[in-house]
């Protein structure tokens, strides 16, 4: 028997052990490897857990446009015309108690109302209110469902972002994409199931991000998000060293395969067969990723739609376009982060500048998905880690103000499969300080996202430290009102 036959036999044995019928070549990259232990649960050939999805999925994939820093709800979506006549008045402590103000403003002697300096208009058949820097979004406003009643407990960037991405303010839990990848596997054998992309607001020192936001936490490491990079190799170490050709790499891999197969035959250790398979996958990624990131191959009208930065690696526009290309290729969870929404000072200019970076590409992504018929089975989510205070941080004028972190209410929007486009959901009080109607907690949003993928958030659990953990901790209700 030659070594490759031995290897095949190994694979068969391994398949028996794992309850999978995968051959060497068909193993999905989403799996990124064999189960870490034989105690792991059985999986479908695409790497998804058996028994999932729990219900017929409404969407096949999620694109989450995370707006890092905390966009100001009252400067973007949560229109409060009545506040103009309260300009400079103190926000009553009955509305905004002192206890949960951050230490950046809790020492202020005054908490004056800073009405939005931006003009609002109603758009679309739905008459959804948007501030003026969002003119591109206004063109697709009937496709989005604006949720004005989001709230969280965390008031600092790090814990708040960590809560949105992992369901807990404390580090160590798996990110949402990792849960989805763990539960559903991938639809593409040559790409990861979960990809993270980052960009920074022009001229901004944005809030930092952390690897844990797309990490696997206590799930096996292969479920972590693969970060596509804006500098150097698009995926870490993707390219061969300088001076080495693809043919030479192939030769190296051929020899590795033969030599490793001999070892596999000797030790009967399934881990060796897995390693051989992963080297082959790496080689295929070396082929498929450059093709994937070649956005120049897009027709001009598409590039124009995303705007002038569509071909600039690492920009938000480029990432939006890449998100669509990843979605087309079956990537399950595409997580974008755009930094720069923090607004302790110069908030009106900050919002306008952030919208200049993001408004057109975001709208283009929706249009592009729609024109390809992909919006029906894609869920697009837009939002940050918290909102901002109606009271001014620092000096207040009619045209300028700063806003501190505000967890009690802020705005998210969703679009795509199964979402009620054109809807505005939930409401805040006249100051945009507290939710007064249909509150949606972080865990509710997470439950809803999973639900659209056909996952019951209470049933996708993983046992760690003797406990069955899940994304939504012990909370979360699907927000059925926003679903069609």
């Amino acid at each position: 028997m030659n070594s490759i036959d031995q290897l095949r036999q190994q694979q068969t044995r391994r398949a028996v052990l794992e309850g999978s019928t995968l051959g060497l070549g068909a193993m999905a990259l989403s799996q990124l490897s064999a189960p870490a232990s034989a105690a792991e649960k059985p999986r479908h050939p695409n790497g998804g857990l058996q028994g999932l999805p729990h219900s017929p999925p409404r969407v096949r994939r999620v694109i989450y446009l995370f707006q890092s820093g905390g966009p100001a709800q009252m400067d973007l979506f949560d229109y409060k015309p009545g506040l103009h006549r309260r300009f400079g008045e103190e926000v009553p402590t009955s509305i905004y108690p002192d206890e949960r103000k951050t230490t950046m403003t809790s020492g202020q002697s005054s908490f004056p109302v800073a009405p939005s300096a931006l003009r609002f208009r109603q758009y679309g058949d739905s008459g959804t209110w948007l501030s003026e820097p969002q003119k591109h979004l206004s063109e697709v406003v009937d496709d989005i469902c604006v949720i004005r009643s989001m709230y969280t407990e965390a008031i600092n960037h790090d814990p708040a972002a960590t809560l949105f991405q992992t369901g807990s303010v404390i580090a160590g839990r798996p990110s949402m994409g990792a849960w989805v990848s763990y539960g559903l596997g991938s639809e593409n054998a040559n790409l990861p199931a979960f990809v993270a992309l980052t960009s920074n607001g022009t001229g901004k020192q944005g809030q930092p991000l952390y690897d844990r936001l797309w990490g696997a936490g206590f799930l096996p490491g292969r479920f972590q998000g693969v970060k596509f990079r804006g500098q150097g190799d698009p995926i870490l170490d993707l390219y061969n060293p300088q001076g080495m050709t693809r043919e030479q790499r192939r030769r190296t891999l051929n020899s590795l395969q033969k030599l490793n197969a001999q070892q596999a035959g000797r030790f009967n250790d399934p881990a060796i067969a897995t390693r051989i398979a992963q080297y082959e996958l790496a080689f295929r990624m070396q082929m498929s990723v450059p093709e994937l990131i070649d956005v120049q191959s897009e027709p001009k009208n598409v590039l124009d739609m995303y705007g002038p930065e569509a071909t600039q690696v690492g920009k938000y526009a480029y990432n939006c376009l890449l998100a669509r290309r990843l979605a087309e290729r079956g990537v399950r969870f595409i997580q974008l982060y755009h930094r720069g929404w923090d607004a302790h000072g110069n908030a009106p200019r900050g919002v306008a500048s952030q919208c200049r970076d993001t408004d057109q590409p975001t709208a283009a992504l929706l249009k592009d998905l729609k024109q390809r018929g992909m919006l029906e089975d894609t869920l697009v989510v837009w939002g940050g880690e918290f909102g901002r205070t109606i009271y001014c941080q620092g000096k207040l004028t009619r045209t300028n103000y700063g806003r501190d972190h505000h967890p009690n209410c802020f705005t998210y929007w969703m679009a795509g499969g199964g979402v009620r486009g054109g809807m505005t959901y939930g409401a805040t009080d006249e100051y945009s300080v507290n939710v007064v109607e249909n509150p949606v907690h972080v865990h509710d949003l997470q439950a809803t996202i999973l639900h659209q993928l056909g996952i019951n958030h209470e049933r996708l659990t993983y046992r760690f430290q003797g406990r069955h953990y899940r994304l939504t901790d012990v909370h979360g209700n699907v927000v059925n009102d926003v679903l069609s």
Partner: protein
Amino acid sequence: MAMCDKLLLNMSTIQNNSLPMTRLLTFGPDALPDPIGVAPQTRRLLRRKFAALVFGLALFALLLPTIEAGDLEFTRDIRPILSDACYTCHGPDPEARATELRLDDRASALASAVFSSGEMLRRLTSKDPDLRMPPVDSNRVLSNADRSTLTEWLKVGADWPEDDRHWAFIPPQRKPLPTTSRRDWTQNGIDHFILAKLEASKLHPSVAADRATLLRRVTFDLTGLPPTIEELDAFLNDNSDSAWETVIDRLLASDRYGEHMALDWLEASRYADTDGYQNDRLRYMWVWRDWLISALNSNMPFDRFVTEQMAGDMLPDRNFFTQVATGFNRNHRINSEGGSIPDEWAVEYVADRVETMGTMFLGLTMTCSRCHDHKYDPITQQDFYSLFAFFNNIDEAGLGPNNGNSPPFIPVPKSWPNLSQKESEFVVPEPVKIKVVQTSVPRPQPGSPQTVMVLHELASPRPTYRLIRGQYDQPDKTQKLTPATPAVLSRWNDKWPRNRLGLAQWLMSPENPLTARVTINRIWQHYFGRGLVRTSENFGVQGEMPSHPKLLDWLATEFVRTGWDVKAIHKLVVMSATYRQSSIAAPALITRDPENRLLARGPRRRLSPFAIRDAALLHSGLLVEKIGGPSVKPYMPPGIWKSISNAKYVQDKGEKLYRRSMYTYWRRTVPPPTMMAFNAAARETCIVRTDETTTPLQALAMLNNVTFVESARFLAERMLRQDSSSPADRIDWAFRLVTSRAPQAGETELLKDDLAAYLRDFQAAPEAARRLLKTGEKPFSKGLDVPMLAAYTLVANTILNLDESMSQN
């Protein structure tokens, strides 16, 4: 047919992952771990497979003595099922309890008469969804196998003994060594336990591994680096009886031992060079790491080792070094994000200390009881905050400084670690001074790079209260808590002071049922990849049962008996015949015991990310060995920090590129990606067990990462400098250097063909060769033939990428 059905019945029990069911397989006196966590579909496959194989027939014989209901033991077989499926609503947490019924408390359960009345049996077997337990909306699943175990147990009288303590809460019992029929195999006590169980399972140990494999295995295990060719030759030529022991003593005496053993401790104690939140500011804790390496190398007894780290500032003989040791409890993350509410985060740090202590020494998950009584283990919320009280008196600030150490810290003399008598004395840290800067962010004074963080008590203790739902701003002020340990564990001796020093004494007391076991288990995991208790972080009711409980206890008592002599325990393990077995196994054995829990073969594992890089540097001659000192910044991908944060990674130059990986700068929010790709712990929280997955990202790193390509370049230079100019000799030398074994002729031939092909390529394109040789900072040696060196580089790259090169066989 009856026999076959019996088999199927037994196979269906295997699906359950919880250990006790495997007891039904009656493999031996100890519970056998679940051999395979298999799906129904797989079980069908397995059935077919077993039916077809002679091997399967052998298994029949083993499986024949099947379920004997009388065999069911409550604590081992029943409670874990109840715990997982029922305790969420019928467990220790009163707030979560759905009805009066408690299945965690013997008196209460018996009084309820659910067992004797047939009520529980009805609820388990009913088809009516309104009656059937557990209810669908509980999201608890009871597998068919577990259900039948419970019904079986109920039918034979539901025996629930009066002493129903969880095994891990009973102090270890030292049992005599079991007798075995085979007498010529055992080397020490460990082997008696392993062999007895193998014999009961009708299995045989494997032959000893060949000497080269053994030397590689033990050298990596004890020092994190491979043996040199000289060391290999010396061992192969040493025919004395004590050859193996000589090697072990040499390795235990090597300074590399302390560096290597420190790694597990660094990961568990969440050591890093930054604070870990938001901007992830800098801190300086390497002096504590130096202390750690030195303590391990000097074989400080484990009780002293723990006591210094828990309470080095309180010891009667305290000094500067014992004070540095307390940095262990300062390695947690510290939030320095502007705007944070200090009280909220101060609570977080203290809780982290409790949780880390719980995981590292007690093998218990304390996190649950932070917000409510534990749902599975008898640890109450009051227990949590009583432990919390031990750590709540540190003179510290809730918000970290903007870069630098957070108080309390002490200045480190320039002469560290060679301190004068005077410098070795205990230092009183400067008290915390909160300054409100900028808008109103209250920050403490920062410690300079020439300081290290320590523990130091406040003059008057902070009051500790139970926090309702774990919320920092909701203390239950009706009761002030004093420091105390959980009642379910060993008793408190009134001679001990009610402070961290007393806590250390309680942890290290021989009556403590957990500390020695949990530590031994991690040591076992270090060598065999899995602990005797697979869930090394959880010895509680929801944890797995030990595969060899008597061995675990024997080792735990041996540890205490030898005065907590750590090196002696390491030596005991590697001297055992169990450790020395070959890892080559027949397919039948792999199928039978894929995770090698029975240890009928030696351990075969992928190397740690640290060892993989260090070995490549050693092979290439690039490794710079220097013990201790501040962290270094080797190669990283471009923009590694800047792309997602506001800090810039400034790579080091020269020898700092080639230090051992344990010294690599660890930024918590952006940890070194190559280390992470190979499953290093992220250092955000206490992690004592990481998985070992294989991914294409690992392949890309090994093939293309600058560190590994540069290592290949310099391995190629060493190949070219060999005495022989024959390509085959050079390849053989490098192959043996990297894998610790000589290649077979076919293997050499294959690589020789590659070499010739690469050489042709590069001779035709010398510019490409030059470009390849520019990978990494260290220039290639003048006078070497460029296409030749490039061709050898690619062969070296191949050798470094062999599965064998990153494994211990």
